[in-house]
């Protein structure tokens, strides 16, 4: 069950120092000497500090908002009460400019999670997830899913967006700058590795809207976890695909000395800066990039064949579609024909029963792919791509391609308001959300 408590009052200096302090304040990111991005960040850095917590161990958190706008911190992938999960739609209070909030939580489940803002951007493509408010969160497990020598955390992000007409006739954000850990390729410090090391990469796509394809020249990636959850069938793959908010944890055997680029496979995104150099000890020369010729990825390869379905599953069918608003506007997003909040009214949607298992049947009738995120729960992907049903693939974000149907199941075991939404910031802002409530 979700566990945590909230103390909204202003803090007194006599209180015990919190375990985690996040200070939200304006910050200028130097992505390169020629690219200075004025944004808002946690603790004066992008991405924010790596936070490690022990699963189930009570943790106090203090959030100071020194920015000019109300803020909120969403703990993405955790089973927390609605009051502190970090979504206004679930009932978490916003933190006013200048205010400080403190609460305690018992973080679970274990795995690679993250924290980020959960506010509205609208047409301002510097706000909310378009800015720098994101950071890594690792809930330490009792045992690691695979042996490794060291961990490296990488955040993919896109900056300086502006709306442009796309081929589908709608306005979509495009970006001038793309970074890994806040730096454009060639401008951050290389990651130093040693020959023979087993490096566990934790890669987060914190982009506000874009899917990213990542390969590591000279090396392969053994995927052991998706969205922080160990996969039933770890696989060695030539590249990764990460939809917005997705995470991949992969082991890399450092067995090819030299300087190598880990970066976006699509050239135009890498040119915008999405890449980072790995440098072996005592390696000379210049960083090498081997351009892949295809985009290769499948969720199915990491899953088990489907087991017998559970007898008591309640289906919930959700159809995603867009409502045209003119070629000079973004579309309005609809779930079952209604936008948020109309689609979440009590008469529009049945309440969840605690303890019941549900199957979400996600029909995407639109022309866009959508990374669908369910708050406060983990779901099991059961039907995706072509082929028979699968099992064992646990995630909190799944990419539902345009014109397809994806099916996921979850156990309703964390009572309280629960948000489901597309993790593309501009889609969220245009109504692509709904709130489940428990009976």
């Amino acid at each position: 069950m979700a566990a945590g408590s909230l103390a909204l009052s202003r803090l007194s200096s006599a209180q015990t120092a919190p375990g985690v302090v996040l200070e939200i304040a304006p910050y200028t990111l130097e992505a390169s000497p020629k690219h200075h991005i004025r944004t808002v960040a946690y603790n004066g850095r992008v991405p924010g500090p790596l936070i490690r917590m022990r699963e189930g161990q009570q943790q106090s958190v203090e959030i100071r908002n020194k920015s000019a706008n109300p803020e909120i911190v969403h703990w993405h992938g955790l089973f927390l009460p609605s009051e502190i999960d970090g979504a206004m739609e679930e009932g978490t209070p916003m933190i006013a400019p200048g205010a400080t909030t403190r609460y305690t939580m018992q973080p679970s489940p274990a795995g690679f999670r993250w924290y980020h803002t959960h506010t509205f951007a609208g047409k301002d493509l510097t706000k909310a997830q378009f800015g720098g408010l994101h950071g890594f969160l690792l809930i330490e497990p009792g045992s690691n899913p695979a042996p490794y020598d060291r961990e490296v955390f990488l955040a993919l992000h896109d900056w300086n967006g502006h709306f442009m007409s796309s081929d589908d006739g709608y306005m979509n954000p495009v970006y001038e700058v793309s970074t890994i850990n806040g730096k454009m390729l060639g401008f951050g410090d290389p990651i130093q590795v040693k020959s023979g090391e087993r490096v566990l990469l934790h890669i987060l796509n914190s982009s506000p809207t874009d899917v990213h394809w990542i390969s590591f020249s000279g090396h392969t990636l053994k995927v052991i976890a998706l969205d922080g959850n160990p996969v039933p069938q770890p696989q060695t793959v030539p590249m990764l695909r990460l939809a917005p908010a997705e995470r991949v944890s992969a082991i890399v055997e450092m067995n090819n000395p030299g300087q190598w680029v880990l970066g976006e496979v699509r050239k135009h995104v890498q040119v915008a800066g999405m890449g980072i150099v790995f440098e072996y000890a005592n390696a000379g020369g210049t960083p090498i990039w081997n351009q892949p010729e295809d985009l290769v990825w499948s969720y199915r390869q990491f899953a088990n064949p489907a087991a017998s379905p559970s007898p008591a599953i309640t289906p919930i069918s959700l159809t995603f579609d867009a409502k045209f608003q003119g070629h000079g506007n973004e579309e309005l997003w609809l779930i079952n024909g209604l936008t948020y909040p109309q689609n979440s009214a009590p008469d529009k949607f049945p309440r969840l029963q605690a303890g019941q298992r549900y199957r979400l049947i996600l029909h995407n009738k639109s022309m866009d792919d959508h990374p669908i995120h369910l708050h406060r729960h983990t779901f099991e992907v059961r039907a995706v791509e072509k082929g028979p049903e699968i099992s064992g693939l646990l995630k909190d974000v799944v990419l539902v391609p345009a014109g397809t149907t994806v099916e996921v199941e979850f156990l309703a075991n964390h009572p309280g308001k629960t948000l489901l939404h597309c993790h593309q910031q501009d889609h969220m802002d245009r109504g692509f959300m709904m709130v489940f409530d428990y009976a």
Partner: protein
Amino acid sequence: MRKSGVLCVNLIAVAVCLLAAHAAAAQGNYEIQVYGADTVAPKNLMVELHSNFTPEGQKYYIDGVIPTNHQEHETVELTEGINDWSEVGFYIFSSWQDGHGVQWVGDHIRPRVRAPDSWHLPVGLSLSTEIGYQRAVYSPDTWTWEIRPIIDKTVGRWYFAVNPALERTFHGPDVKQGLGFAPGAKLSYDLTPVISAGFEYYADYGRLGAVDSLHNQQQQIFAVTDLNVSPKWEINFGIGIGPTAATDHLIVKGILGRRFDWGKHSPVE
């Protein structure tokens, strides 16, 4: 989109004739289009066919120019994208008419540049210039030049474009007339994702600084529809009226365009 330089030069010449002849205008409508600010992408070729028919136009020869009544004009426009902010267009004008058959009319070349996206302007902005030749039986002014600023803006379902074009004759009766002012404008509304409807306005006010009387100005307004069936296709239909004496009174126009991407693209892109 815009109306061709051929047309405008013809219109100026005809307007001068009208002053003496007191006759309705003769004009040649070869490309009737108000330009949007965007340019064709690099390594892309846009092929357009402009088909314009004049059900009710000038019925008499004026100064050796063939009358426009019941003329069918077919113009092939080839536009190649150079880079993210420039293109070059090339035109082949032709005319068909009873008694004259199919005739080559002339050719124009039209380079264009636009403000790059990185400027983040609140409107689309580009600048086109066009130079070319047309036969004297279709236009007394045979060598002409045009410069055309283009501004456009999309707001929600509304689209607006204005082309305040200036024209100059290099060879022909109007060579001493200086710059002429021939603006075009468009206002349209997205009825659905596929269908837009609106109006296009074309005018030729005559010489800059000494505009013609309304009677002798070119004034046309078209009811138009654009069909946005695919990014590869451009489809535009319209019917226009010319209320002044110097304008063809009724014109039907159509544009069918197809974009060809001839660049090599990696599958990963």
